[in-house]
């Protein structure tokens, strides 16, 4: 995998999911709490029984930024996507296929994928209603 990724025993399932366009988030088997970024201990109940599980991909905009780069001249929107599965369960990704001027906090999002080197990274588009 890419050298730009930080891969360890906790984050490996996430990146393996990304290879297959599956968003795998760690979940505590004891209390059901979703854990992201990945940790080996549940920050809610302290159980160490944790497994990756695929999420629905339904989300809403918690916040977003628009970054302008000079070289090469370009701009992109980064969204903090709050997943429907749990309050404050946030995955960060680029906004794609959506007019940046037409988004606001709270808007619904659907999961999409961008190719990055030899794998994929999560991205989001604005969902209808």
């Amino acid at each position: 995998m890419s050298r730009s990724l930080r891969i360890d025993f906790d984050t490996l399932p996430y990146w393996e999911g990304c290879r297959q366009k599956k968003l795998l988030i760690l979940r505590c088997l004891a209390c059901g709490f979703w854990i992201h970024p990945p940790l080996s201990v549940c920050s809610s109940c302290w159980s160490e029984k944790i497994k990756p599980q695929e999420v629905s991909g339904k989300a809403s905009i918690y916040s977003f930024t628009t970054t302008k780069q000079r070289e090469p001249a370009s701009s992109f929107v980064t969204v903090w996507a709050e997943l429907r599965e749990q309050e404050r369960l946030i995955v960060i990704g680029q906004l794609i296929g959506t007019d940046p001027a037409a988004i606001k906090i709270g808007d619904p999002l659907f999961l999409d994928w961008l190719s990055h080197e030899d794998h994929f990274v999560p991205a989001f588009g604005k969902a209808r209603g």
Partner: protein
Amino acid sequence: MTLLPDHQGRRVAIAGIGRTEFNRDSGKSVGSLALSAAKSAILDAGLERDDIDGVGGVFCSDHPTVWPGYVVGGLGLNDIRWSSSSAPPSAAIVLEGINAVAAGACETALCYHAKYRWDVTSTSVRNDPMRQSPPMTFDPHFCRPLVSHCPGANGFAANMRRHMHEFGSTREHFGMLAVNGRTHAQRNEDAIFYGSPITLSDYLDAPRTIDPFTLFDMDMPIDAATAVIVTTLERARDLPHRPVVVEAGAFGASRKTDQIFQPFDGYFGAKVVMDTLWQRCGYKPEELDVVNLYDGFSVIAMDWLEAAFCTRGEGAGLLSDSWNEHTGQIRLPGGAVVNPHGGNLSEGRTQGMGQILEAVLQLQDRAGVRQVPDARLALATNAANPIDVALILRADS
């Protein structure tokens, strides 16, 4: 005057400060910068090599920093009895030194911080072989492949948008924080933005580099090292400068500690710090003469302002009441001046150490043309989630 509770040990003071020039291209390694500031601080306090028996520094394996052993060896120090390496926030190492002297672990501690422009935070040196980052071990949100560069700025810009959404603050309020620093920096020849004043209109009209951030919301990466000498109040009273008494210092952390990519709860750690400080020292916010708010990003200063002076979501109203459009300055209730050195936004990225150095200079009556008249009590804050730290300092009477 409220004394520290007995369990906090000996009374402690800051006796001197040291710093390098602050500039964009020092031509020096981060280690050289650290040695230079450390040496200056020892001399400024009127001390000699063998007076130092403790050394603490900010050291982070994936940042360009140097550990205390480097400084001990580099300055040829002997008989060091206390040492500590603190991860950021930078001011944490000063509080570590204060606690060490209070506890009797050492008599006189040198606490330093050194950093130079590097590829992670300074776009213009992305391809400079002299300024590459150590191997990346820190990317908890997998941001590096996503936003490619300056991921921290994206997180804090998202936080500013969130603050505006939840509390009705506007870019004007964040602009007041940025312009206030820039105004003060015009009386600080060492500031990176000395000679470049801005108005609120300049702020509002500026390109939004990481919307809602403009460049005015992000501190300027510089080559900079800073250091302070911490000793007992008793010892400090025999040294050349007026002792700066540590009235209280505190760490704080609370809620999600997702660091720079999700800094949405920064207020809560700052609140723990401020509640602890007020309780320990017995002063009230209105008694402060100088309020040095950490402002690595403008929105962080908002967190600290709310934690120190009002409560969550009330910062915008407080700023509107405290802002003077004619002077381009903020004056808080009780008259306190905010960041008379310019803050990190306008003095440069000392990562919060500038706030401590300025507090010391003001309380020692050494701030020159920007001296706040009769400055007796100062607050210096640093960091934004997960670990926050602040000090309340008083001029020895």
